[in-house]
C-alpha cells in the first residue's frame, strides 16, 4: 500500500480537523470528497508531510515520514498541489516547474526534459516562457499541476485540482489522472463529484474530520438509490445520502 493511515488525528487548538482517520490506498485514483471544512485539506497536508499529525500512524510509500531520512525519500517521490497555490509572479512557467523539479532532488540532467514534458502534459507548452503573473487562474492551476507531476511521482496529492479549469481542460485533466493512476497513487481532494465519478477507482467521503464512507464510486451511487437524497446526478445523491446518514448517526450518538 502506498498510503496507510491509522487513526490519524490532527488538532488545531481545540478544533479537531481530522479525527482518527484510518485508510489505505494503493495504485489508482482515489477521490476524497466532503463538504467545506470536512478536513480534506488537513488530511492532504499531513500526507504531503507538511503538517505533522497530532496522533495516529502515517506510512507513505512504505516509509514513516516521522524520520528525516524516510521523509526525504517520500518527498522525492511525492507530487503535491495545494489548495491555495502560491507562486512567484516573476518566474516563467518553465522556471517555476524547473525550480520545484530541482527542489524535489530530481537528477539534474533529467530536469530539462522532465520540465518540458510536464508543461506539455498540462497543455501549457505554448506558454512555457510566459511569466506566471500574466496567466489566468486556470492556467496557473495547470502550472501548479505541472510542478506536481514533474518528478513523475509515486504519490500524487491534488487539492481541488480542477478549480478554475474550463470544461475542456477538466476532461483532459481527468485523462491525466487516469494515466497517472495506472502506476501511482493519486489522491484527489474535491467537492466536484463528477470528477470522482469519471476518474476515480476509489472514493472516500469525509465529514467533520471523520471518514464516513470508503468504497468505489459505484457503491456510493448505490447508497443514494432510493434514499430520496437531494442531487441531480446519481453520485450527488449518493454523496448527500451518506452525509445525511452520517450526520443523523452523529446526532443520535450525541
Amino acid at each position, binding site marked *: 500500500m502506498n498510503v496507510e493511515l491509522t487513526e490519524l488525528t490532527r488538532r488545531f487548538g481545540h478544533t479537531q480537523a481530522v479525527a482518527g482517520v484510518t485508510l489505505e490506498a494503493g495504485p489508482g485514483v482515489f477521490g476524497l470528497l466532503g463538504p467545506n471544512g470536512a478536513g480534506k485539506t488537513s488530511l492532504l*497536508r499531513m500526507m*504531503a*508531510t*507538511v503538517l505533522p499529525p497530532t496522533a495516529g500512524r502515517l506510512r507513505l510509500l512504505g516509509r514513516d515520514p516521522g524520520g*528525516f*531520512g524516510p521523509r*526525504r*525519500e517520500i*518527498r*522525492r*517521490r*511525492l507530487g*503535491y498541489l*495545494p489548495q*491555495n*497555490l*502560491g*507562486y*512567484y*509572479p*516573476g*518566474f516563467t512557467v518553465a*522556471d517555476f516547474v*524547473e*525550480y*520545484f523539479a*530541482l*527542489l*524535489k*532532488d*530530481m*537528477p*539534474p*540532467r*533529467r*530536469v530539462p526534459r522532465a520540465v518540458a*514534458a510536464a508543461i*506539455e*502534459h*498540462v*497543455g501549457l507548452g505554448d506558454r512555457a516562457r510566459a511569466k506566471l503573473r500574466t496567466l489566468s487562474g486556470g492556467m496557473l492551476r*495547470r502550472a501548479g499541476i505541472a*510542478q506536481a507531476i514533474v*518528478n*513523475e511521482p*509515486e504519490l500524487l496529492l491534488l487539492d481541488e485540482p480542477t478549480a478554475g479549469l474550463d470544461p475542456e*481542460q477538466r476532461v*483532459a*485533466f481527468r*485523462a*491525466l489522472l*487516469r*494515466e497517472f493512476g495506472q*502506476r501511482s497513487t493519486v489522491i484527489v481532494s474535491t467537492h466536484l463529484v463528477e470528477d470522482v465519478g469519471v476518474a476515480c477507482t476509489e472514493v472516500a467521503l469525509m465529514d467533520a474530520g471523520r471518514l464516513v464512507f470508503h468504497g468505489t464510486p459505484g457503491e456510493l451511487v448505490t447508497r443514494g438509490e432510493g434514499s430520496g437524497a437531494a442531487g441531480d446526478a446519481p453520485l450527488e445523491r449518493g454523496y448527500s445520502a451518506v452525509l445525511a446518514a452520517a450526520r443523523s448517526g452523529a446526532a443520535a450518538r450525541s
Partner: protein
Amino acid sequence: MTAATDAPVRRPLAPAGGGVPLTAARLLRLELRHNTMPWLLPLIAALFWFDTYRPSAATPPYWVLRTFWNMGQGHTIIDFAPFVAGVAAWVGSRDGRRGTADLVTAAARPRWAVQLAAWAATAIWAVGGYLAFVGALFALYAHQGVRGQPPWWWVAVGAAAVLAFSAAGFAVGALYPSRFAAPLAAFGAMLAMLMSSQTGFTHTSGWAQILPTNSNGNFQADSGMLYPWLPDLPIVRIMFLAGIAVAALGLLGLPAAAGGPRLRLAAAVTVLAGLAAAGTAAGLAGTARLGPHGLVIPALHDAANDRPIAYTPDCAGGGFRVCLNPDYGSELAHVTAALAPVVREVAGLPGAPVRATQVAAKYSAGEGQGGQAMTISGHPPVLGMPLGALGIPGAFGWTDGETAGQLQLLLVHAFVGAGNGVGTPAQQAAQAALLQGAGLPFASQPNLLGSVGLPSWAPATGGPGPTTPVPATGPIYAAARRLAAMPAGPRHAWLAAHLAALRAGHVTLAQLP
C-alpha cells in the same frame, strides 16, 4: 491538457545521487535570474554617484584623502546597506508572502539549502554591484591621476559589510515573513550605520573600532604613499562582519522545518561559530593601540607592514633643495615657494636648514592631524616635513595661502626649538618676529596658529594658551614687535649669539632686545 493517449511513456525517477552540486548551481542560476537586487542597482548607482563619488572627487587627488570620505566615513557602505538589507529581507520573506511555504516544505531538498540559494543570489548581486561600483570609482580616480596606492583592504571590508547586511536582512525576512520585513530591515540597517558613525565620533579606541563606519584609526596621513595601508583593523572588521553573516545564515537552519537533526545541529554550530568570530574580532579591536602608521592589533600585526615604501624623491630648488615623495610631486613648487621667505630670513644662522625633505607623518587618533611639528636635525641641518599631516590645498577647505603660512610657521617653530609644544614665551616671540620678517604679518598669525592646532601666542604668559584665534596683542607680541623692528643686521647678530640659549629655553621675554 493532452489526453492520456498522447502522453509520453514515464518511468519512475531514480533518487538524486551525485548531482547535488549541479542542482545547487541550477537553483542558484534560477535565483540569480529572478532576484530583486538588480532592479535596485541603478538607484544605488545614483546614490553612489552623489554621495560617494562627487564629494570625494572634490578633494585633492590622493587615495588617502578620497578613501577617508568613501570608506573611512563609510559612505560606500551606507549607500548600499539599507537597500541590500531590505532586498534580502524581501527575498527571504518570499515563501511566506507568496504562500509557497507548503510547496517548498513538501520538497525533498532541505528548506535551509533552498533558502541559502536564494540568499546567495541576493548576496552575489549585492557584492557584485558593490565591487563593480567601487571598481568604476577607482577607475575614475586612476583616470584623474590620484596618487598613492588603492586601499584594497578597505574595499574588502566594504564587501564584507554588504555580505553581512544581506545575510542579516535575509534572516529577518525568512524568520518574520511579512510585507513589512523589507522596510524594517532597511530601516534597521540605516539605523545601525548611523549609530556606528555616531559611536565612532565619541569612541576613538577600544571595541568601537570594530564598527564598520567608525572613521577613527582608519586612514593615516601617508598610508599608501610613505608606508603601506595597515591591514590590522580591516582584518578584524572583516572577521566581525563575516561572523555576523555566518551567524545570521545559521539561524535559518534552526527551525524544525529547516531540515533534519544533523542539518539543524550543523546550523547551531554555524551560529555559534559566527558569534565566536564576531566576538573574537570585537575583542581583538579592543586590544588595538596607536602606532605611528595607524592602529596596530598586536595579535595580527605583521612587522613587514611597518617598513616604509621605498621611493626616489622629486626635488626642486637651487640653493635650498626641497625633496618630496613623488606622490606629493604636484605640491613641490608650492612647498618650495612657501618655504623660501623663511629660509632667506634664517639663512646663515646656526642650525638653519640647508635643505628640506619629506618625512612620514605620525598618525594621531581623532579628527585631524593638527599639531605635528617639523624637525631640524643632522649635519648639515635638514628640515623634516610631515607633509601628510598638514593641510593640503583643496583638502578640507585649505587654501594655498593657508598652506603656505602653515609651512612657514612650522619651519620657524622648529628653528627656535619649540618642539611639539607651544614653546617658551621668548621662543614664541622669536617665531612671531621671524614670520613677520618673512612676510607673514602679526595680525594673521593667531588664525594660522589655530589652524595648525597650536595655541595662540597672544595671551601666553609661560603656559599654553587657547587654540581659538585672538588678536595679536599681549606681552609676547610686544616683544616680537621690538625684535622685528630691529634692523636686519643687529637682529641677525643677536639671534646668532643667543639661538642656543633660546632653543634651550633659557631666554626670557625681558631678555629679548
